[in-house]
């Protein structure tokens, strides 16, 4: 799976899922898993390849979601145009966060804390600002036409989120084979050594952050269209920041298929937990935590790393 052929194969296989089952439960599960794969791939660009661990990807996810939803609800903008603007807005939030934190030289846990703070500030603002519907939330009007980016059945949603994931895979593949990708990994491995060979470290990190934010924002836009409801806790809540980093870390940090693999595993685990415990609230998070500790301790390169070692 070293080439674009590998991506084509994986995407083609996944595209067959709606042809094999019409079960809404299965499709819903897969849509959510792919959404997490997409958001996780966004995190992976910055965290996996660039070594900049963000705890606040909710900031980009929520911005994409809110911008798409609010443009439709309050300004009558077409949902597809809303998607494009939502992605751009997420990228902009990434640029601002990146400029502020990278220019002041924040690294490691300081960077993580600042991203967390940004997401939390946005969550609190969104929970009181009138434009987001504050405590009531924002409801996107039901309009089941493809022009409105809404569909009667789950299958089209599934194929669209799969297409988003496919694009994200292509972007990451492209990064891997480029000078920018080599620079990004160099920055992750050793910033001083990177500077010494002429790499503009701040610029490389910033580019990665903008790209990362845009991919994650696309996930937010999709979320708004799929669930048609947002509030501050959903859009900017820590849950999505956690999912965004859990998927790539468990699947294989800094690998192209890591986020997809991780999202499928994490979501499957979550479902199994729910079935076994009868939806005890929060128990899936306990399981996530345990799995995360196991992965970090025994498989620092995630599932993808384990597979590579075996073969």
């Amino acid at each position: 799976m070293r080439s674009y052929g590998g991506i084509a194969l994986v995407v083609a296989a996944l595209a067959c899922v709606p042809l094999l089952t019409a079960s809404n439960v299965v499709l819903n599960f897969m849509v959510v898993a792919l959404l997490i794969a997409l958001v996780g791939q966004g995190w992976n660009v910055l965290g996996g390849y660039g070594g900049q661990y963000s705890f606040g990807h909710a900031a980009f996810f929520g911005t994409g979601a809110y911008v798409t939803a609010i443009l439709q609800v309050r300004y009558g903008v077409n949902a597809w145009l809303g998607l494009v603007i939502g992605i751009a807005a997420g990228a902009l939030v990434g640029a601002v966060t990146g400029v502020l934190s990278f220019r002041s030289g924040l690294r490691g846990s300081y960077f993580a804390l600042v991203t967390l703070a940004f997401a939390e500030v946005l969550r609190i603002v969104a929970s009181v600002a009138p434009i987001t519907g504050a405590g009531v939330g924002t409801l996107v009007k039901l309009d089941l036409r493809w022009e409105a980016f809404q569909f009667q059945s789950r299958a089209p949603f599934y194929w669209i989120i799969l297409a988003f994931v496919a694009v994200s895979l292509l972007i990451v593949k492209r990064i891997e084979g480029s000078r920018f990708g080599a620079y990004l990994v160099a920055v992750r491995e050793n910033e001083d050594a990177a500077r010494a060979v002429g790499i503009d470290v701040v610029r490389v990190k910033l580019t990665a952050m903008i790209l990362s934010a845009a991919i994650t924002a696309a996930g937010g836009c999709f979320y708004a269209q799929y669930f048609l409801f947002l509030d501050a806790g959903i859009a900017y809540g820590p849950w999505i920041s956690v999912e965004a980093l859990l998927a790539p870390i468990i699947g294989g940090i800094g690998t192209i298929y890591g986020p997809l693999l991780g999202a499928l595993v994490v979501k499957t685990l979550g479902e199994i937990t729910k079935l076994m415990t009868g939806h005890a609230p929060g128990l899936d998070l306990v399981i996530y935590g345990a799995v995360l500790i196991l992965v970090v301790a025994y498989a620092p390169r995630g599932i993808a790393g384990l597979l590579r070692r075996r073969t």
Partner: protein
Amino acid sequence: MTEILRVEHISRRFGGLLALDRASFTADEGRIVALVGPNGAGKTTLFSIITGFLKPTEGRVFYQGAEITGEPPHLIARRGIARTFQIAQPFTGLTVRENIAVGSHLSRPSRASALAAAEDVADAVGLSAMLETPAASLTVAGRKRLELARALAIEPRLLLLDEVLAGLNPSEIRDMVPVIQAIRARGITIVMIEHVMQAVMSLAEQVFVLAEGRMIAMGPPLAIAADARVIEAYLGHGAAQRMRGAAHG
């Protein structure tokens, strides 16, 4: 002979410590210049200032006639000044080839050509056999070579080597000396910080001696080795006189 590097009256203060005290030196194009001095003399600090990793408290640095004082490290590297680190700083998760290619990318945007160019550089420092080895599993000698290779990969005009021979055994040092000579033969000016005096004697044409932040002597290697101020800087006050006394008596 034209001057490629000129360091003028550089001082650097760390809190109450004056690490460099109006230190000056120059390097002529195509030469090997050695910077020697006891531990803590400020040699590495001076390298860090030349390459932009530290800003001087006062003083100026000129490269090819243009002032570069205080420029950020990546711009100085792009001007053609490469450095190695005293403690090797490999990109540990990458192979030798990938490490070198990061440097080659400076003039080669394409991944394939950067990876290919890494081969020639590896060849020049004797790492050809280890191209696909992970940098993390290199020996000390291997890491030193990799430092050198990555610096060479940016195709510098001026190469600053910070103790590339430290930690090597005598036979490894013997292997490394011709590598450095070959680099100079390609027209690259070298400024080296070095404690291995036997190598300084055989490589350098000009030696500058730094002690307690001050440049106390300069000249050809043999003259420097006999300089009373240098002997005292290394061995303590009065050492030169006692040595002379011992030789005569």
